[in-house]
Every structure is written in C-alpha cells, then in structure tokens.
C-alpha cells in the first residue's frame, strides 16, 4: 500500500495516470477477491474498508497532482495534434467530480478510437495516393523510354534497309555485268562469226586443220612432180640416144654420098648428074648433123633445168611438210589451252549462278527480318496500352479518393468535436494537405504526341 504513493506522484507527471489509477483499483479488488476463500470474515471486512480508504486517498492525491501539473487550458485544442485528445481526457479526469465523470470518459474514448481509425484511414489513403503517384511516374517514364527505343530502332532499321537496298542493287548490277562478260565468251552469233571464245576455238581449229591439210596435200603433189620429173629426165636421156642414132645415120649417108661421087667421077661425063645428086645428099647429111647437134645442145639445157627444178621440188616438199606438222602441233596445243580456259570460265559462270541463288535466298531472309522492327514496335505499343489504361483509371480513383477524404473529414468533424477547417489548406481549399494535386502533374508536353492520348 505504501508503494502506491510514489507511483501516484510519477503518474501525476505522466499522461497515463488514469489507466494506472484504474489498474490499482482493479488490482486491490483482485487481491481482496483472491483472499476471500482463505481469510476469516473480519479480516475481509477490515481489508475491504482499508482498500476503500486507500482508493479515496489515492483519488484525492491524483486530483491534487493533476491540478498542479496541468491547469485547464483556454480555447479549443488543435485537432490535428494527436496528444491533445489524450490531454483532454486528463483534464476531464482532473475535474473534481469524482466517479460521476466516468460516462464522459467513455464518450471521449469512443471519439478517440474514431479519431484513430480516421487517422489510419487517412494514412492508408495517403499511402495509396503516393503509390498511385509513383506508379504513374514510373509508367510515364517507361512509356517514354519505350517510345525512345522504338524511335531509335526505327531510325536504325531505316538506315539498314536503305543501305541493304543500295548494296543489293550494286551487287545485282555487278553480277549482271560479270555474267554478260562471261556469257560473251560462251555464246555465238547466228551468222556463224565467232563472238565467243568457244566459237573462236572451234572455228580456228577447223580452219587451221584445213590449212595444215592443204599444206600436206601440196607436199604430196610436190613429191608426185619430183617423180614425174624423174621420168622426164629419163626420157631426155633416151632422146640423147636417138640423136646419136640420127648422127650415125647422117655419117653413113655422107659416106654413101662420097662413094656415089667417086663412082660418078669414074664414069665421067655420064655420071655428072649423078655427081650433083651425090653432093646434094652429102649436104643434106651435113645439115642433119647440124640439127642433131643443136637438138643435143637444147636437150642439155633442158636436162640441166630439170635437174635444178628436181632439187628445188624435193627441198620444198620436205620443208613444207615439217612446217605444216609444226603448225598443226602448235594449233593443237593452243586449242587445248584455250579449251581449259573456257572450261574455267564456264565453271566461274556456274559458280556465279549458284552464288546469285544463295544471295537471293539471303535477301529474302533479310527482307523478312527487317520487318520485325515494325512488328515489335506495334507489339510494344500494344503492351503499353493496358498500363496507360491503368494509369488513367488510377487518376480517376485518386480523384475519387480526394473527394472521399473530404467527405470523411466532414463526417468526422461532428462527433469528434474538432474543427474541420483546421485540416484544410488555405491555399488549396479543394484538397487535403499531403495529397498535393498528384494526378494533375501527369500531363507532360510529350503526351501530346502519343497514340494513347491521356485526357
């Protein structure tokens, strides 16, 4: 019991004094109730009286202490100070009305609970508005970033597409020119003139072969001519023999004319005529001899000429043959080499054709891939739509929250006995302080360009 006095002094300076005072009462009653079955009746009666006495003293001291520590203030307490309501209870408890003041305490406790609830609700609402505001900011930021990314990728894709188109055009031109160049070596004109390498090889091969054949034929003819010349030479030798016979015949005729002349001289006058005939025969024989000599001379010259021609013909035929064979060999070599080159050209042409097909396939792939910018940007814009919708909804909800809060304040001002105007910001009578016009700050200049228009 004695320990109660310092406790009261302490609680006199504390705001929790009424609770402790009640607790003391309840504690004493509990001790008394607990000892009821064990103590005799007079002890119980005595202790009950003592307890009542102690409680009375306790209440008295409590009132005295309260009057000293907290004089009743003038005017209405500021409603937004949470400690004021509790002080108010202290004051009421401090009024010397004794235990009759308890119903008023209950009323105040109820209002305190309501105040706490209102405060918590306000706290939750503030938190809610704060979250909404932060979401709105994040959503706006995200949308701007996504749009920047879309713009950047669009720019890059446009550049890639332009460059790709230029590259393909140049590659096509290059391939066409290369093909024209190579196909020129493979084709031919309809009139048969060689316009391609292949054709040139074919025509030159045919003509050179023909020429070589001609040369061989000329050589053969030369050999024939040499053989013919041989025959001619033999025949001239035969003529020589004949000429010798003719000369022998002329000599015998001359001798016979001489004999006739001798016989005519012996006969005398009767043989004079015969002598004239004999001298004419001798003269004819001499002329025959002269002719034979001249023929022999000509024949000699002919044989010498034939001999020279024979030598030339032999040299000519032998030389032509060797040269023709050499040319033929060279032509065959050249043709083979050209044919090799031509095969290489044909291979290159087919390689270029294969490469062109591969390039065409690659081009298709690039054309398909370059469309993905458009697809992804549309997808991204579509993905942003629900977020924008949510942001708009949040704005409405926040506005409703502000109205609700104002109504709440109004409804609480009555029972709580506080001053509703004390909570209002004089600069902005439409909103509650701390809520600070969150949604209105959302409309940025960038919003004007968006496909999703916000208000």
């Amino acid at each position, binding site marked *: 019991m004695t320990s109660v006095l310092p406790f009261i002094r302490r609680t006199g300076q504390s705001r929790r004094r009424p609770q402790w005072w009640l607790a003391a009462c309840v504690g004493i009653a509990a001790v008394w109730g607990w000892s009821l079955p064990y103590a005799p009746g007079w002890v119980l009666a005595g202790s009950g009286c003592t307890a009542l006495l102690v409680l009375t003293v306790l209440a008295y001291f409590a009132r005295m202490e309260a009057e000293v520590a907290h004089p009743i203030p003038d005017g209405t307490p500021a409603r937004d100070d949470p400690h004021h309501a509790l002080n108010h209870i202290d004051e009421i408890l401090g009024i010397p009305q004794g235990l009759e003041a308890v119903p008023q305490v209950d009323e105040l406790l109820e209002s305190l609970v309501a105040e706490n609830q209102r405060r918590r609700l306000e706290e939750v609402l503030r938190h809610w508005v704060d979250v909404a505001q932060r979401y709105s900011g994040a959503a706006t930021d995200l949308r701007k970033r996504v749009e920047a990314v879309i713009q950047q990728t*669009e720019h890059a894709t446009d550049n890639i*597409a332009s460059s790709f188109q230029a590259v393909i055009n140049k590659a096509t031109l290059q391939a066409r020119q290369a093909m024209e160049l190579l196909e020129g070596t493979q084709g031919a004109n309809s009139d048969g003139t060689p316009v391609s390498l292949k054709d040139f090889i074919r025509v030159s091969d045919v003509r050179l072969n023909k020429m070589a054949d001609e040369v061989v034929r000329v050589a053969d003819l030369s050999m024939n001519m040499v053989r013919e010349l041989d025959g001619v030479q033999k025949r001239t030798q035969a003529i020589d023999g004949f000429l010798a016979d003719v000369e022998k015949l002329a000599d015998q005729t001359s001798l016979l004319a001489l004999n006739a002349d001798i016989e005519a001289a012996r006969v005398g006058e009767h043989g004079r005529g015969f002598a004239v005939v004999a001298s004419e025969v001798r003269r004819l024989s001499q002329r025959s001899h002269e002719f034979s000599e001249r023929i022999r001379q000509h024949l000699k010259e002919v044989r010498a000429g034939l001999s020279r021609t024979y030598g030339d013909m032999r040299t000519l035929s032998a030389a032509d043959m060797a040269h023709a064979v050499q040319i033929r060999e060279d032509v065959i070599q050249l043709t083979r080499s050209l044919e090799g080159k031509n095969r290489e050209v044909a291979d290159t042409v087919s390689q270029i054709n294969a490469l062109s097909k591969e390039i065409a396939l690659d081009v298709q792939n690039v054309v*398909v891939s370059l*469309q993905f*910018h*458009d697809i992804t940007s*549309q997808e991204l814009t579509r993905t942003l739509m629900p977020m924008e919708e949510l942001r708009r909804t949040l704005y409405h909800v926040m506005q409703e929250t502000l109205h609700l809060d104002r109504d709440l304040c109004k409804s609480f001002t009555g029972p709580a006995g506080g001053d509703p105007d004390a909570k209002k910001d004089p600069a902005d009578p439409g909103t509650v302080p701390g809520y600070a016009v969150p949604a209105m700050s959302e409309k940025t200049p960038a919003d004007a360009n968006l496909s999703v228009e916000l208000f």
Partner: protein
Amino acid sequence: MATIMTVDDTASMRQMISFTLNSAGYDVVQAGDGVEALALARQSTLDLVITDINMPNMDGIALVKMLRALPDYRFTPILMLTTESQDSKRQAGKNAGATGWIVKPFNPDQLIHIVRKVLD
C-alpha cells in the same frame, strides 16, 4: 507493268515492299498513312493497293472503305498486310472490301506470288 501502292507508317516496311516488288518488275508508289494514300489514289491510276491496318490519321480499314467508295477503285484488288491475325479483324477487313490478308512478316516470294495471282 502494273503500278502498286504500298501504305504503311513504317518507312522500312515500305522500303522492303518496294524493294521486293521492284525486283519483280512492278512500279511502286508509297504512302505513309490512309490520308496520303487516298490523295495518291485520286491523282493516279493504281492496279493494286497493299495497306497496313494500324496507322495514324486514317487506318487501313477506313482506307479500304474510302477507296471502295471511289468509282475507279471499286474492283481494284486491295491486300491487307498487317501484324493483326485475329478473325474479328480479318472479318472487318473482308467486310470493308479487302481482297486478301497477309500477316507480317511477309516472305518476298510469297508476296510476289500473291500479287501475281490477284493481278491476273
């Protein structure tokens, strides 16, 4: 050779369509949205229109309706080339008067094949 108009708000898409059709020997004119496309269609003769759906100012479906209202384009083939693949959108395109529907991304060979088919 036939003249084809491609309508898309994405420049790279227009470039790819032009590139593909040019390589097949067609003349291609480009428009960035429905309004531009309609103006182009009024001042020139087109044999085929290939249009996107989602575009600013005037979308593809509205463009098809406007083109079909013009006497010159009552029977001109109009192909929709879009990322949309829902049946409801397809039906809307068909009701507006579109000739065909191609979902992006298009394959160049496939596009040329379809273009030849509708132009014949």
